[in-house]
């Protein structure tokens, strides 16, 4: 192996992975606590969309692509998130 010695180097993707793990744990604990309601839903959904965007940008590598690809993926996320949120709010009435 000819890696240059970099004792304190943590790869960006590793940091992303750590953040994803932490956010998943947060989602899980909200479920465990049995929390529900509009604000909790919006919070969990926001976490989910952030996680999704991180996967898309950093893991799938979309952040280095032309705007078209990012717009397609972004609008998919927005539409799915929007549908989930609005359907949830509809259910409150």
């Amino acid at each position: 192996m000819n890696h240059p010695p970099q004792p304190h180097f943590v790869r960006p993707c590793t940091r992303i992975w750590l953040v994803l793990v932490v956010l998943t744990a947060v989602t899980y604990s909200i479920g465990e606590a049995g929390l529900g309601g509009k604000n909790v839903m919006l919070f969990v959904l926001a976490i989910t969309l952030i996680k999704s965007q991180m996967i898309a940008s950093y893991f799938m590598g979309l952040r280095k692509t032309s705007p078209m690809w990012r717009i397609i993926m972004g609008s998919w996320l927005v539409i799915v998130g929007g549908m989930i949120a609005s359907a949830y709010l509809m259910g409150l009435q």
Partner: protein
Amino acid sequence: MPTPSITLHNHKPGAPPGDLVIWLFIFAELLAFGIFFGAYAFSRSHHVELYNQSQLLLNRESGAINALVLITSSYFVVRAVAAIKQGFSRECANWIAGAIGLGGVFIVIKLLEFNAKFSAGISLSTNTFYMFYLSLTVFHFMHVILGMVILTAVMLKARRGGYTPEDHTGVETGASYWHMVDLVWIILFPLVYVIR
């Protein structure tokens, strides 16, 4: 160049990693899952009580563990791509093997979960919630299997030294598909197991 312009695109700058064809399929798949997610959400709005009660009977631990498993597996695949970009075929194959192994873990956990549900007599016709729960998770489950098949093919080729820093579209293609499988679970888990 023996066969010019075989594919639909020739790695223009700004194109996503992997072959364009896989992106066509990734977006088609995301569209299908997106419609299913929307259908779940809107159907829930008509039966909030039923959904909230049925959701309590799901195994949230196995859902969460599987989310962590897939995220980690996705991370391994990122490392595999990074490795092949530097020309480390062996390292690349090993990371992919790890990802496939985690895929196997996902499958085992999921099978245990399904087994528990089926032996409790739950089926597609139990109620609308379980119809969606089973449809979505089984559909995703089949994608995990498909993704593992693709990754296995990539791994074998990497092991033979079939990829180079200049030519590793195959690795990126398999990786992109696997991330998609991960992405779907990232949304599916909170939607079905947590949000109430």
